[in-house]
C-alpha cells in the first residue's frame, strides 16, 4: 500500500501512457476498417484478399510483430510508434471481419427502401447501413479494446509498455508489488474500456432498446 502511495504519480503516468498506446490504435483501426469493410462487402475478390490477409496478420505473435516493425517502417526500436502501429494492425485484422459481417447483415429490403427514398449511395451508407452495423462493430471493438490493453504490456520488452514497465521493473528487482499493481491496473483498464464501449454502443442504437427488452 505504501509503495502504491509513494509511486502514485508515476503509476498515473504509466496509466496515461497505457491508454494512449491502446486507444490511438483502436481509433485508427476503426477509422481504417470501415472503408476496408465496405470494400470487402462490395467485391468478392477484395473480401477474400482482405479476410485472408487479416487472418494471417492476426496470427503473428505480438512480440514478433513489435520487433519486425522497425525494419519495415524504418523507426527506431524504442519508438512508441512501433507499439501503436502493431496494435493498429491487430485492430484492423479483427475489425475488418466485424465490419464486413455487420454490413453484410443489413437486410436487403432496408437498403432497397433507402434507395427508393432517393438516398444516394454515400448518404445511404452513412445514415442507414453504418448505424445498423453498429452493434456488431461495437462487439468487435470491445474485443479489440480488451486485447489491445492487455497487449500493450508486451511493449515493455522493447521499453515502451505503459503499465507493462511495472512487470519488467518488478521482475528485475524481484519485487512482487509493482507486478501485482500492474496486472490489476491493466485488467481494470480493460474492464472499464469494455464497459464504456458497451454503453456507447447502446447509446448509439436507441432503436435496439425495445428489441432487447422484448427479446
Amino acid at each position, binding site marked *: 500500500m505504501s509503495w502504491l502511495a509513494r509511486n502514485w504519480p508515476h503509476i498515473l503516468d504509466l496509466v496515461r501512457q497505457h491508454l494512449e498506446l491502446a486507444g490511438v490504435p483502436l481509433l485508427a483501426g476503426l477509422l481504417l476498417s470501415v472503408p476496408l469493410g465496405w470494400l470487402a462487402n462490395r467485391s468478392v475478390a477484395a473480401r477474400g484478399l482482405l479476410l485472408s490477409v487479416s487472418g494471417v496478420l492476426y496470427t503473428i505473435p505480438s512480440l514478433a510483430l513489435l520487433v519486425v516493425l522497425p525494419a519495415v517502417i524504418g523507426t527506431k526500436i524504442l519508438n512508441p510508434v512501433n507499439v501503436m502501429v502493431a496494435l493498429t494492425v491487430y485492430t484492423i485484422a479483427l475489425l475488418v471481419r466485424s465490419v464486413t459481417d455487420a454490413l453484410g447483415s443489413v437486410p436487403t429490403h432496408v437498403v432497397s427502401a433507402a434507395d427508393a427514398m432517393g438516398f444516394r449511395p454515400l448518404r445511404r451508407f452513412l445514415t442507414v447501413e453504418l448505424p445498423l452495423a453498429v452493434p*456488431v462493430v461495437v462487439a468487435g471493438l470491445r474485443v479489440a479494446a480488451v486485447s489491445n490493453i492487455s497487449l500493450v504490456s508486451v511493449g515493455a520488452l522493447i521499453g515502451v509498455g505503459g503499465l507493462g514497465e511495472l512487470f519488467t521493473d518488478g521482475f528485475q528487482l524481484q519485487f512482487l508489488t509493482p507486478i501485482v499493481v500492474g*496486472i490489476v491496473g491493466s485488467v481494470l483498464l480493460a474492464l472499464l474500456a469494455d464497459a464504456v464501449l458497451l454503453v456507447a454502443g447502446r447509446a448509439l442504437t436507441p432503436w435496439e432498446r425495445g428489441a432487447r427488452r422484448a427479446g
Partner: protein
Amino acid sequence: MRAVLGELIGWFGDPAHWTGPTGVPQRLLEHLGYTALALACALVIALPIGALVGHTGRGGFLLVGLANGLRALPTLGLLTVVVLLAGVGLLPPIAALTVLAVPPVLAGTYAGVRAVDPAVVDAARGMGMREHQVLLRVELPNALPIIFGGVRSAALQIVATATVAAYVAMGGLGRYVIDGLAQLDYPQVLAGAVLVAALAVVLDAAFAGVQRVVSPAGARRSRRGRAGRVSAVRATEPGGTPG
C-alpha cells in the same frame, strides 16, 4: 530495409546458428514442446468443463464472463508473477501458458455444444440415448469444428506467449528476440521474430486443415474451416448483439 534484409539472410546463412543447444532446430523443438505441453494441460482442464456446461446449459454466463475476464490478463504480468512466486524452471511458465490457453478452449467447447441444433439433441433423446451418450455421440461430434476453432486460438496464444516467456528464462524461439535485444544484435532479434511468425502461420494453417478434416459432413456446409478462429473469438463475447 535492404541492409537489414541482407543481415537477416546472413544470420540464417551462418551454419553456427543451425547446430547445438542454441541452434534453430533445438529452439524450434523447445517451442513446439512447450506448446504441446501447455495445450495438452489446457485440453484436460477445459474440455470436460466446457462440454458439461454446454450440455447442461448451467453456468454458461459465468463461464463466458470468466473466459472474457481472463483475456484481459496481460501475459507478461502473469509470467513474471508466476516465476517470481514459483521460481524458474519449466513448470511455472508452462502453468502460466496453460492458464492463457484454457479460456479459448473452454469458450469454444461451450459454444460448440450450445450451437448444436436442439432438434438433433431431441432426436437423440427420442431414440433412447442416455445423457452421456447424447453428449459424447451427438453433441461433441457436431461441436468439433467450433471446438477446434477454440483449440486453434489456444495454440496460437501459447506460441505467442511462449515467445514472451523467453524473458523469464524459458528457451524456445523467443530467446533470439530477447537475447538479441539485450545484446543490441538486431539481426538476431529479427531472425527470431521471423521464425516465430512463420511457426505461428504454419501451425495455424495446419490446425485449419485438421479442423476441416474433423468437421462432420453435416456440419461442414455451415462452418467452413477458416471461420473457426473468429467464431471462437465471438463465442466468448457476451451475448445480446443481434447481427
